[in-house]
């Protein structure tokens, strides 16, 4: 009968909605979508912090090794928290750290490096933030782990902590 049929459709639809909403509740609601597709690093030219020369990304990421791109700035407070961990990571032979100096004043950045140490094999200048956008970054601090095939394995928003350091050590095996 027509009435029963429409009732059945309505009930099925409602159960469907219920299931969707129920599952939706159990999903964590971060505002960062998971990196679904493993992307390659972008192609770009950037100014080197120390030499002021323009380098191409192919040259910067030239070696057959793991890279960590770390976005930092002298005015960024959480960056100071993660800096000692970056220093530790830089001692690891299988990783190269590339620093992206984000929207910063050159002298302040230099002071920061002199005071807290330089974990980076190379520092790139990103005065207007456009380089960080090439990586799909939201701001600072942020780090990207890059494998030997130049693919971005993981994006870390916020300062690195001990847990993440362990994760990184596992990833680079």
């Amino acid at each position, binding site marked *: 009968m027509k*009435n029963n049929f429409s*009732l059945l459709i*309505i*009930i099925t639809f*409602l159960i469907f909605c*219920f299931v*969707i*909403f*129920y*599952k*939706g*509740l*159990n*999903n964590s*609601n971060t*505002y960062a*979508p*998971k990196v*679904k597709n493993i992307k390659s690093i972008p192609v770009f030219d950037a100014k080197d912090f120390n030499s002021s020369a323009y380098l191409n990304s192919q040259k910067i990421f030239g070696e057959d090794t793991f890279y960590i791109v770390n976005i930092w700035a002298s*005015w960024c407070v959480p960056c100071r928290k993660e800096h000692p961990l970056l220093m530790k990571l830089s001692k690891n032979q299988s990783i190269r750290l590339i620093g992206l100096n984000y929207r910063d004043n050159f002298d302040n950045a230099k002071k920061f490096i002199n005071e807290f140490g330089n974990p980076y094999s190379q520092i790139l200048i990103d005065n207007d933030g456009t380089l960080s956008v090439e990586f799909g970054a939201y701001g600072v601090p942020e780090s990207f782990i890059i494998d030997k095939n130049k693919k971005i394995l993981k994006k870390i928003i916020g300062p690195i902590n001990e847990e993440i350091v362990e994760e990184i050590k596992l990833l680079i095996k």
Partner: protein
Amino acid sequence: MLANQIGYYSLILGFLFSFLLCGISIKDFNRSGNQISQNILSISFLQLVFVIVSFFSLVLSFINSDFSNETVFNNSHTTKPLFYKISGTWGNHEGSLLLWLLVLTLFIFLFLIKSREQPKKYRILTLLFQQVIIIGFFLFVLMTSNPFNYLFPIPTEGLGLNPILQDPALAIHPPILYLGYVGTSIIFSSSLAAVTQNYVSKEWGRHIKKWVLVSWVFLTIGIMLGSIWAYYELGWGGFWFWDPVENISLMPWLTLTALLHCIIVLERRAVLTSWVVILSITTFTLSMCGTFLVRSGILNSVHTFANDPTRGIFILIFLFILIFLSLGVFFLFHKEDNKSKNNFFWLSRETSILINNWFMMYFLSVVLIGTVYPIFLDIISSEKISVGTPFYVKLIVPFLIPLLLFMSLGPRLKWIKSKIENKNSLIITFMISVMLSFFIIKNLTTDLLFYTALVSAAFFLFFTTVKELFIKKFNNAAQSVAHFGFSLLILSILFNSILSSEIITNIKIGEKYIYSKGEIFFKKTEERKESNFNSIIGYFEIKDENEKTVELKPEIRIYNQPVIITSEADIKTTLLEDKFLVMNFVKGDEYFNIRYQVKPFMIWIWISVLLLSFGGLMSLFKKYEK
């Protein structure tokens, strides 16, 4: 502290009284006679009193900054001004649920008092269905959202109330909105009761119309207050963002508007009865659904409450219980309309009301789908998309054109069967509208055809309703006023959107910024200390092309608890336009970033919504013509 105890036990008593009420009502159901037992009235009143006592205990705890109460601790601070301590009571999840209970119990009590001439069994069933909702909310509060949790040791200071919530409009926005939003519960309960009693008739229509109007007026004003708050407080000069929480208040409004129009049919002819019941159920369901979406953490928005999935699961289950209950009642008890009485003619007022419903349901589907689709997509395929303003504008605005035209013609039709009278005057009015719109739009924007069509339709409604008001001598004034208000709303929004201009620039003290239509002079800054914030006030002198100067003083406020920096816009309002100026820090600079907007006809947007509600009020207080 004592207030805490009293509040909590009062809540428990109110909860227990639900069962008492259900028991007495069921017993009274089969008793002979056509008046319900006095006990039922007294006990519902007592239940209301318990909820009121509980609510005021919480208010008292807020006023006294009693931080032994967890809710007060989480949401208040000793330095808050008294007014915002009080409004902080309902500015949080637990307190707002008390407000839900307050409105639920208040409305059922008022319903019982105001329905003495109604059939007894219908009244009892309405009470029973409403108690299902009330019990559900009591359980929700007592099990997951107790406003009277004890904290020990007692903190000396609270965590504070978010400063952007400390605004007069936002303080009264929830109570007014809830009176509308939660008030739809009584429509839900009484429709279900009417269905079981086969009482969906003209008499019922006349009786329930008052309640639909009351909900509708409060909901309209409640939504307007939210928009006003957003405009004055959020600092971007907008008043509607198609944010999920805004959409959630709009959806019941759309169905309630459709329901209102159907009731107007129902009070004259016993037709569309199934549809009326479906709309009543849908309206309250949407309210509940909205509550779920906002409080469960499933949606991200500027103004969701704190995320808590356990609460979400509770509401979700409760919501679906209500849906299945109402479906069950509907399909079991509903009887089809008496077919022989159904005579619909193409050109009739009934048809135009059907068309109104058609458009309201369409708008509802746009807003509903736009709001929940991202959730469905995310769960099913893990893709995250945004559904923002462009979606809603593209799907809704074009349909306003036929809607406005139908609104102009519909009320002119008579019931059952009609022809359009005064065709010539209508055509002339129409042509005047088109020409007027054309010459205005021509000078303003490139999208000539579309805007001309839209503005013409709005002007057409505008002129026809004005004519109705003045020429037909108040013979249906409520409807004309409301429709007139709607036409004014569309016109104000349109012209405001086309004519608004904005300048964004960085400026430092003493500097003068010159632009095509005038200049902005940044005179000085001053500092000011209040009880819970420090602020920097910028003094700006703005000269327009007519050499008229206006002074605007936007502020940047640094609140103390929690530490938040907000920008307070300064807005100068006149009937013609609003001048809006907001100021922000620029990092590491002596410069300030300012946004100066000139927004024509802004105040007419609020005036037209008030007119719209006023039309509803007029209908509420109209003496019924026989």
